């Protein structure tokens, strides 16, 4: 590291660094344990049978996949996951299609009131969903879109667009202007300029916005709970929340469904780790 390179006494610096590393590693291990333990507990419970679910043993005494078969054959968790996937993918595509052009316009084109629009969008993206859920319910009921994919996709698109526009705009700002000017000189129209010249440059930003939108749509709860109450269109989060009886909670089945619901998100986050981190920090750091 650069900060130790200039130290006058290399021997003591090395010793200090070693000591420092031990402390850091121990702390990191504790953090990792605090984060990972509940997740491990969930996965372990999903492999415990009816008799073992109440046992505190960290390793399932009689590992079984019965919960998984149960969740997807006896109960409709397969349908819920399918619904979530359809809604999340459609929302992501729609948000990106609308957000890319809006983000580009707000980053580059001379419009009045851009600062006000960006501020308003950022505020809206942080507004509590409870503030919109009742009118949204009435609106969707009036147009007959309760218990449908399109009602949820429309709601989610509006809910997630502000943040996506914000991420995309910040990425567009970092692209050199010369690119578009040469495209214009070459006679490319504005649509072609955005799609063929700007977009390839802003691909990391598009991934970031896409991953954020997908995760937000996959995990959204209150709107889905309100507008899609039929089993046919229920999403996975709501399905898990409403599962269970009056007196007992069938945790084995719940966690089997949860583990499967976590899988696409976990893969997405692992594959696009950089994109997610840069999105989380878009608010903290310039471009």
């Amino acid at each position, binding site marked *: 590291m650069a*900060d130790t390179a*200039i130290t006058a006494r290399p021997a003591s610096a090395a010793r200090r660094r070693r000591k*420092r*590393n031990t402390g*850091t590693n121990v702390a*990191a291990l504790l*953090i*990792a344990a605090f*984060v990972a333990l*509940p*997740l491990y*507990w*969930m996965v372990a419970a999903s492999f415990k049978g009816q008799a073992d679910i109440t046992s505190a043993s960290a390793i399932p005494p009689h590992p079984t996949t019965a919960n998984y078969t149960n969740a997807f054959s006896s109960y409709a968790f397969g349908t819920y996951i399918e619904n979530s996937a359809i809604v999340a993918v459609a929302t992501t595509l729609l948000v990106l299609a*609308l957000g890319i*052009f*809006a983000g580009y*316009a*707000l980053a580059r*084109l*001379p*419009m*009045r009131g851009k*600062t006000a*629009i960006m501020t308003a*969008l*950022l505020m809206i993206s*942080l*507004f*509590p*969903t*409870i*503030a919109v*859920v009742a*009118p949204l319910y*009435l609106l969707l009921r009036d147009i007959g879109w309760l218990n449908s994919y399109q009602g949820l996709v429309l*709601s989610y*698109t509006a809910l997630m*667009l*502000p943040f996506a526009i914000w991420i995309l*705009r910040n990425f567009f*700002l970092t692209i050199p202007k010369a690119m578009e000017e040469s495209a214009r000189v070459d006679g490319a129209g*504005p649509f072609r300029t955005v799609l063929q010249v700007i977009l390839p440059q802003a691909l990391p930003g598009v991934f970031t916005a896409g991953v954020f939108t997908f995760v937000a749509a*996959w*995990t959204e*709860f*209150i709107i889905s709970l*309100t507008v899609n109450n039929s089993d046919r269109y229920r999403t996975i*989060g*709501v399905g*898990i*929340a409403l599962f269970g009886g009056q007196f007992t909670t069938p*945790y084995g089945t719940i966690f089997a469904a*949860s583990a499967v*619901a976590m899988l696409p998100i976990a893969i997405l*986050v692992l594959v696009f780790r950089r994109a*997610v981190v840069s999105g*989380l*920090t878009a*608010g*903290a750091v310039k471009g």
Partner: protein
Amino acid sequence: MTSTDTRGGPPQTGRRPEASRPARRRPRPPRSVIQRGSARLGWAFASPALLVVAAVMIFPIVFSVVMSLSNVNVTGNGFQLSGLTTHNYSILFGSPRYWHDLEFTATYTVVTVTIEMMLGTLVALVLERLTRARGWMMALLLMPWALITVVSAELWAYIYNGVYGMLEAGLNTVGVHGVDVLGTPLQASIAMGVADVWKTTPFVAIMVLAGLVMLPADVVEAARIDGASAWTIFWRVRLPLLRPVLAVAVMFRILQAFGIFDLPYVLTGGGPGTSTETLAVLGYKVLFNDLEFGPGAAVAASTALIVLVVCLLFLKVFRTQVAEQEG
């Protein structure tokens, strides 16, 4: 080609620079056909997205406010708004439950955000020093953040279960028995806070870490050469430099925590009693369980109003966020 950007201008004022700056290095020509054309193009590009947001986010917020100020009659096949009234708000403000929930939500927000900021900064400092496996740590930290909140709520309910939960098992080994965490108000609030801290501290940590990495190395180096201890450097040099990043993280977390719904709804159901009921849970119950759309809208609208006030308090942070990127 005349550039139309505001580079070098004072973006922090949020005003258009040309009026206040008569002496530019190059005199600005009148807006050309191309520029006017591209402004129009800008609106053409932005308006589909802005219209969707206006119709499906802004209009409902405004409608909540209108609904909260109206007599709402729920009929067989819908509902009617008639007449302006403050009745819904007098119901609300006369209800001890509302004041309790407001106080609980505010206290919960302040306490959890404070803890998350401190822990998040600590975690970020550890990650910054970590030389090995930092990528894996980041990936692990992102898991709780990306988890469906409902799932994490069920998971913590399982851990907190008074009969066979992991916590109970752990307490049993040190001789403590029969602690029903979710059965008593204060313990249930703390339990909910722990679940929240588990899920959102990584978010804070990653934001702060990005801020730490971006700090100017020479300033820290200069302090080190001057003989400042690591402790002094952190408090006197790095923390002040980190303030803008911390402000953004605090703002994000306060606004998210204040509107929290999923976790209390699934983990505690607002209980025992109404002890862990947040404003969002109250609003939902009044709207969709009691079907009291007037008072329910009043809960939603008053929550939105409080959030708006907090937003305005943070307006400077918002402004720097928007302007910083332009400058």
